[in-house]
């Protein structure tokens, strides 16, 4: 995880702080932490080694760093190199005009080929092209049925083999012929899963390749794959000449080091990533984000994009305005929570924010949705006045009433009020800040949240400027003068 990588890097560089120069000897320990991070992310051993070699040569020499924080500097270099290695990516699928474009998907058993076929088909269909799916997995029971169901869901035709004992090569050829006959723009072949060391099945794949001549061959790789990723990717690439990789199951907590391994060994870029079981959960691959993930650095770019897409822009603007005017009450708080919820499971959202990795783990045991419902229940049991200024208005008797209304303990109401009080001040401070400052603010918030002993405290106000002793005396005098005048009833 990023936290631990940063921690160990910082430890490795403590003696260096202030001087900030990277040399062969003082980088050794830092690179060792990076190496462990890469191996824990399942980057193939040899890929990690050659990668660190490159980073080392890059970081020393004329690129002597004058940064105050060599740990960050090194992570930056590592990150940049990772991005360079995994990119560039072209997300376009090259279509051939005048005849069906044939795409073939292959991979190990259980990597997610059939699901990826459907996702890919949906994506292409959305671009306005006709797709024919071909069920050529005659190995796994009901694989044909699965593709047929997915085809029905997508309202797309599926070519299924006739009779039992059909030959996958013949099925693929027949599917392509049918697409030509019926005028489908794209054909997607779903092949059976196979082990890279299964020579007979690899030969069969090569036979399909020769007979049908697919325009694009995509390898489907499970993001959770370990060291074996290099071996199988290499074997598939040798048998088929892959054009791209689809990496699946990235919606979990796999660090996905296999992405780096596969790209390094085969040179084949990753085009798409699977991020869920839903048929629309296929996204373009972004090396920068993947690099962060492999290092455990979170994925702030993805978050921002996703947020922009799903957030109600208008609502955001209104809230922003209110915040700038110093208004932030429990109603706003509730709206905000509801919006955050729309992004998807809160755990997933949190995991994308740098520094929130630990938060995700912390929340793993709790049902966030249920907690949110309780919060909403409490807020809904309040009067408008209570929602506006909870800390000021809610006394013991009101607290008892609210708790009874929401079906919770009075202590929970107090908790909410206290937490909200600290948060409101922080939210008001956040309005008008740039994205970067906000992220920093969020990280601070997290730091406080993860400290079980502490409550989110109201941030200390800023006096704006430092006063001299003389000015302070003058101000005090003025205040006393004002107070006296008030007393006299002026």
């Amino acid at each position, binding site marked *: 995880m990023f936290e631990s990588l940063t921690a160990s890097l910082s430890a490795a560089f403590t003696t260096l702080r202030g001087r900030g120069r990277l040399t062969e000897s003082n980088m050794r320990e830092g690179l060792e932490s990076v190496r462990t991070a890469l191996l824990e992310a*399942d980057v193939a051993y040899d890929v990690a080694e050659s990668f660190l070699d490159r980073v080392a040569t890059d970081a020393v020499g*004329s690129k002597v760093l004058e940064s105050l924080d060599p740990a960050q500097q090194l992570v930056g270099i590592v990150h940049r190199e990772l991005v360079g290695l995994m990119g560039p990516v072209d997300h376009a699928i090259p279509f051939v005009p005048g005849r069906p474009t044939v795409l073939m998907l292959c991979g190990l058993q*259980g990597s997610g080929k059939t699901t990826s076929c459907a996702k890919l088909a949906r994506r292409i269909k959305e671009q306005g092209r006709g797709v024919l799916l071909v069920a050529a997995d005659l190995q796994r029971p009901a694989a044909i049925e699965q593709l047929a*169901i997915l085809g029905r869901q997508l309202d797309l035709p599926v070519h299924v083999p006739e009779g039992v004992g059909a030959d996958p090569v013949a099925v693929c050829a027949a599917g392509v012929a049918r697409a030509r006959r019926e005028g489908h723009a794209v054909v997607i072949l779903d092949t059976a899963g196979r082990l890279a060391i299964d020579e007979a099945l690899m030969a069969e794949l090569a036979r399909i390749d020769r007979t049908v001549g697919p325009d694009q061959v995509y390898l489907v790789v499970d993001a959770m794959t*370990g060291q074996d990723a290099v071996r199988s990717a290499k074997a598939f690439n040798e048998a088929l000449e892959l054009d791209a990789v689809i990496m699946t199951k990235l919606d979990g907590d796999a660090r996905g080091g296999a992405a780096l391994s596969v790209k390094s060994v085969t040179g084949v870029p990753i085009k798409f990533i699977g991020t869920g079981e839903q048929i629309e959960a296929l996204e373009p691959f972004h090396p920068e984000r993947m690099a962060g993930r492999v290092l455990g650095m979170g994925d702030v770019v993805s978050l921002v994009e996703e947020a922009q897409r799903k957030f109600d822009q208008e609502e955001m603007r209104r809230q922003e305005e209110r915040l700038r005017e110093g208004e932030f009450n429990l109603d706003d708080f509730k709206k905000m929570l509801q919006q955050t919820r729309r992004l998807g499971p809160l755990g997933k959202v949190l995991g994308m924010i740098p520094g929130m990795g630990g938060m995700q783990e912390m929340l793993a045991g709790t049902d966030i949705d249920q907690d949110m419902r309780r919060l909403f229940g409490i807020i809904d049991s309040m009067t408008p006045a209570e929602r506006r200024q909870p800390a000021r208005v809610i006394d013991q008797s009101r607290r008892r009433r609210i708790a009874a209304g929401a079906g919770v303990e009075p202590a929970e109401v107090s908790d909410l009020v206290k937490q909200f009080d600290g948060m409101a001040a922080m939210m008001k401070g956040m309005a008008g800040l740039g994205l970067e400052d906000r992220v920093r603010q969020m990280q601070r918030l997290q730091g406080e949240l993860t400290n079980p002993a502490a409550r989110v405290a109201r941030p200390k106000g800023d006096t704006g400027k430092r006063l001299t002793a003389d000015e302070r005396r003058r101000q005090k005098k003025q205040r006393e003068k004002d107070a006296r005048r008030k007393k006299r009833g002026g």
Partner: protein
Amino acid sequence: MAIFGFGRGKDDAPGEKPAARPGILDRLKAGLAKTKQVLATDVRDLFKREGRLVDDAFLEELHGALVRTDMGPAAAAAIVGDVRDRQKSRVVDPEAVVDSIRRQLLARLETTAAPLASAAAGPTVILVTGVNGSGKTTSIAKLTRLFTRDGKKVVLGAGDTFRAAAVEQLAMWAERLGAEIVRGPAGSDPASVAHRAVARALEAGADVCIIDTAGRLQTQSNLMQELTKIRRVVTKLVPDAPHEVLLVIDATAGQNALSQAKGFREAAGCTGIVLAKLDGSARGGVIVPVTEQFGLPVKLVGLGEGADDLEPFSPERFVAALLDGALAAPA
């Protein structure tokens, strides 16, 4: 092996963007070609010469060989550390070092040799869980085969009501293997299917009831809670059930298997592991840290797509395969 090859690449123009520098891929490929030799080596080949000096280079090679089994950097480092402490700077007898590693791995896996639990009376209920595509349904087919071969009556619960055609897949197996199957409509509550399957097993006087579940990632807390619910429902019918909750782990999985074991153990109370797809080039070394950290025994290993390709886990054979074939390069 020079990990920090500072001497190398001096000819590269410094200051240029790495992406713009020519030949990165070629250099990488050259580097990989070199290490290919190591890849193709057996652990014991490191000792082929009469005695070998245990130096840093040697320990590094050993570390690499162990990491490549997927046992993870920590376990590999611990083993290498042990060899270093005891044999650094000595010229060692090859067999002794191999023995020491084998013994260490065995010690780590020792706790794990355990047969499948069975009910004292009534049907033995087995719940099968795992992430998507790990091989749950196929493993269930193999388990069924294991029982029917002994003349036992098996009822299957098609609890994967989510994935398209998952129920059909299990039904096809049930038909082939002569087991009864209890199914619900697509999208129905898996807990109700589980409940009906167990009820049916009780009613039919079956020996075993195996319940399939939809694949889920351990980070999906709502789906993980569904497992808890399935468990609860089963316990209501048969108080000491489920007798086994198996987690199917794909042998090609890397360090994420640790997170899987953690998540599934917490939510579903896993009692054992089925290591699937061990017939490929992956060695499944990740079960070394998994068993060590979570005390979950490996009960069975899957070795192919056929119904008979399931074997009881043998630590001895597993460790032998780990050290023997771990470094075999793909064809």
